[in-house]
């Protein structure tokens, strides 16, 4: 053992402190003395060059005037890849596209196609879209060749007026604004999927499929005691202002979503002959109690009952559609559907749907227009919503007595 220590010290001394090559001795010294510096150090650059070539040839995000025609797979992309593919999807023929936040992300495109009777459908929802990125994304999507229907899920993130964007939104914007040399597609998984595009004809990767199926949270809310306890606490010991009417509500034209997203996209849709269905995601009515008490994530709430602020935003959307005479745009208050929102087993947490029959019902609601807002029923909407939120006042989570 003893002779080893000075030997190791000598090796470290030679290699780390850089004694001249002529001093290198022993097997490691001889290996170190081989003229292999450039071949090894240049290897990543060779790999980088190959990645660039593949990305430039395939152009998976459709950011260049050249490249192979986009051919995307159906519903197999991981969450952080979807915002990259907005432009590529909008270059392909699609009859219907769904766009929204995490509340519409779980909808499989096959389910949408089967329920609404379309052949080519894409769900391009990504988490936390805000008005700033939703506008450019929808303006891109509405020009999709062959598009007949655009389903837009509008959740409370669209109430933001602060110009904020999140990582996914920034990704979508950077791809939409990318120049050919920006290379947003310079990523190992993207290059792998691009190689599949060359070989198999579809931009896809087996890893993504397994990632998607493994990452799906299949446990229902009713099997999550900690979440149920939080909801139970919010309902049994509610925030004092849960039913307080907001003292002030922002004027409708102050919403960035209405000004910068709804009106321009609605007009463009009218020109393109695309029907736009805006829908509000149904959430368990306990969630509104929880938001009132615990929501720390959304900084744009004003004073008073939060669900009433949300309903006010929804009414503003409807009124803007009527005033602007956007005949192609329909507004669906699907958050009123008790058949979905009153059943906690439909959800994986306090916000997101999990069961496909509930999702199919929501799609049928939209298709049939059962909860469509009209001039006749729009004023009743806040009262109906209030009744539903009040209806869970005595609710206790299972096991909480």
């Amino acid at each position, binding site marked *: 053992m003893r002779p080893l220590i000075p030997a190791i010290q000598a090796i470290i001394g030679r*290699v*780390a*402190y*850089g*004694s*001249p*090559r002529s001093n*290198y001795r022993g097997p490691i010294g001889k*290996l*170190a*003395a*081989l003229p*292999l*510096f*450039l*071949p*090894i*150090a*240049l*290897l*990543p*650059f060779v*790999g*980088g*060059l190959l*990645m*660039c070539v593949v990305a430039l040839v395939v152009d998976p995000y459709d950011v260049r005037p050249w490249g192979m025609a986009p051919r995307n797979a159906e519903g197999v992309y991981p969450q952080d890849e979807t915002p990259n593919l907005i432009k590529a999807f909008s270059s392909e023929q699609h009859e219907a596209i769904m766009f929204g936040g995490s509340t519409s992300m779980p909808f499989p495109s096959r389910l949408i196609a089967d329920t609404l009777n379309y052949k080519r459908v894409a769900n391009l929802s990504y988490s936390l879209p805000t008005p700033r990125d939703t506008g450019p994304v929808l303006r891109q999507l509405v020009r999709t060749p062959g598009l007949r229907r655009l389903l837009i899920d509008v959740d409370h993130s669209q109430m933001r007026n*602060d110009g*904020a964007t999140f990582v996914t939104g920034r*990704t979508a914007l*950077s791809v939409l604004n990318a120049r050919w*040399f*920006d*290379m*947003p*597609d*310079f*990523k*190992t998984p*993207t290059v792998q999927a691009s190689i599949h595009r060359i070989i198999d004809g579809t931009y896809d990767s087996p890893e993504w499929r397994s990632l998607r199926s493994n990452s799906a949270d299949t446990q229902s809310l009713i099997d999550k005691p900690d979440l149920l306890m939080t909801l139970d606490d919010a309902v049994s010991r509610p925030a004092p202002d849960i039913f307080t009417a907001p003292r002030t509500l922002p004027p409708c034209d102050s919403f960035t979503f209405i000004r910068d997203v709804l009106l321009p996209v609605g007009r463009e849709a009218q020109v393109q002959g695309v029907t736009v269905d805006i829908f509000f995601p149904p959430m368990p009515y306990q969630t509104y109690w929880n938001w009132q008490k*615990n929501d*720390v*994530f959304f*900084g744009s709430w004003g004073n008073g009952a939060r669900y009433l602020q949300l309903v006010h935003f929804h009414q503003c959307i409807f009124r803007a559609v009527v005033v602007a005479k956007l005949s192609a745009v329909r507004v669906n208050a699907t958050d009123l559907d008790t058949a979905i929102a009153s059943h906690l087993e439909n959800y994986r947490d306090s916000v997101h749907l999990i069961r496909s029959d509930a999702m199919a019902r929501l799609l049928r609601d939209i298709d049939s227009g059962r909860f469509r807002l009209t001039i006749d029923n729009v004023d009743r909407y806040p009262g109906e919503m209030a009744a539903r939120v009040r209806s869970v006042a005595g609710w206790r989570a299972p096991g909480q007595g």
Partner: protein
Amino acid sequence: MSLVYPIFLFAFLPIFLALFALGGRIGGPRGALLVLVASSLLFTASQGLGFLIATTISLAINYALLMAIIRARIGGRWGRAMLAVGIVFNLALLVLAKYSVWLQWMPGIGPLSLGLSVAIPTTLSFLTFQRSVALLDAFTACKATALGLQSPPKGERPSRADPPLRYLGFASMFPNLMIGPIAYLTEILPQIARRSFGKLRAIDISIGLTLLIVGMFKKFFLADALGEDWVDPVYLDVARTGATTSARAAGALAAYYVQLYFDFSGYSDMAIGVARMIGVRLPMNFDSPLRATGIIDFYRRWHMTLTRVISRFLFSPLSIAGTRYAARWRLKGIAAKLPSLWLPLIINFTVIGLWHGPRLTFVVFGLIHGTWYVIETEFRSARWWKKKRKTIPEWRRKLAGAIIAIPLLVLTFALFRSPTLAVFVDILQSLGSTATVPQGAVLPFDKMSVIRLVLSFAIAGLAPNVYEMLGRYRPAIRSFVNPSTTPRWFAFKWRPNIIWAGLLFALAMLAMHEMATVTPFVYQVY
């Protein structure tokens, strides 16, 4: 396109190197220089048409003035006037394109300035200095400059094409075009005029590659991630809501201290590395500045090429004028120091602050650093201190200096990062906040970001900088000779062997993993 784009690193650069070698083989040094100029113009064009037009016009005017200065200095008159015209032209272009916010009220100039700032969104700051310094070089060292521009490579005939080609090669050279390092004409001319220019050497490629990879690692793996995880979300929160928790504020301050260093020094390493691949040594820009033992030491290690240019252009003339003024009026003590040292220093640092852009926080940053510099200069030159310092061991003096300097630097960096003074004050107030992170809130920093922050501080605090490691190969031109602050055990020395190749391979892979989102260099906006 800039040095961070994958298309630059993996396509533009190898193609350029191949063409450069081909140009050198076919046309000798002139052929290689022609390739360098053409590639640089292509690189310039990728910044947008406005930038290309502005820089090309500036190139033509600067070249004409440079030759006029040389002729005037050698056999004619008006040299000083030409120099003044050139510097005024360069500074005017910079001011018009950069300070439109402050010039809007001026009739005629306001709209012109706004138009220019829209047409040229990319910074002109660095190339303005580089070209102005070239004029100054021509004025102060006209014979050497003339010789450098005109003398043919050894064994070849003189050519009329040499002066414009060499000047273009210097003034438009793409590695340091955007964010420096700011080189002197007299430093670069002998290198591009030599006979061996255009011949790629394995050792130059190895050294250049090492600098490039280290720069990539600093930029992509450290700086960008630190900004994304620790700094940007906190500043965004504070700008929106006016507050954050004390832990997040402290994290942001600490992270920005290292982020700015790794971002800017990463760029400099990459630029110096790319230039070194074609056998050109650029001046060194950073020398482990985060271990500075005071503000004087800091500016001998931080953005060294700007420090030397500003002190040559601004501080020295001001100080000389002030000293003459004090001598003429027989001023003594504070009355003499004020015009000869203190005011020039304060002006010097205010200009450094303002140079970053039209923002009040930059001005305050400059004023604080200027005042600090004055205080430290006075302290170090005080008689009692000179006596006292002999009795204190050096390590203890250095340690005490660092303990005082580093927190102040962290705070002034935070000021530098703040868009407004109000945001800076909010950040400082948040440091004392007792608010806790709400239960269930997702913190922007996970385990990996904490590891990255600790690693960044470990590298900045203990590791040798790349120029120390490459020391025996003279990787860059040293503007200041600073004593090494690297602990002996960590004073690793680079050799082009398989072990270092493996290490660089690993660093390059880590950098490439983070490369998909191109984040501009922090200094690219200044």
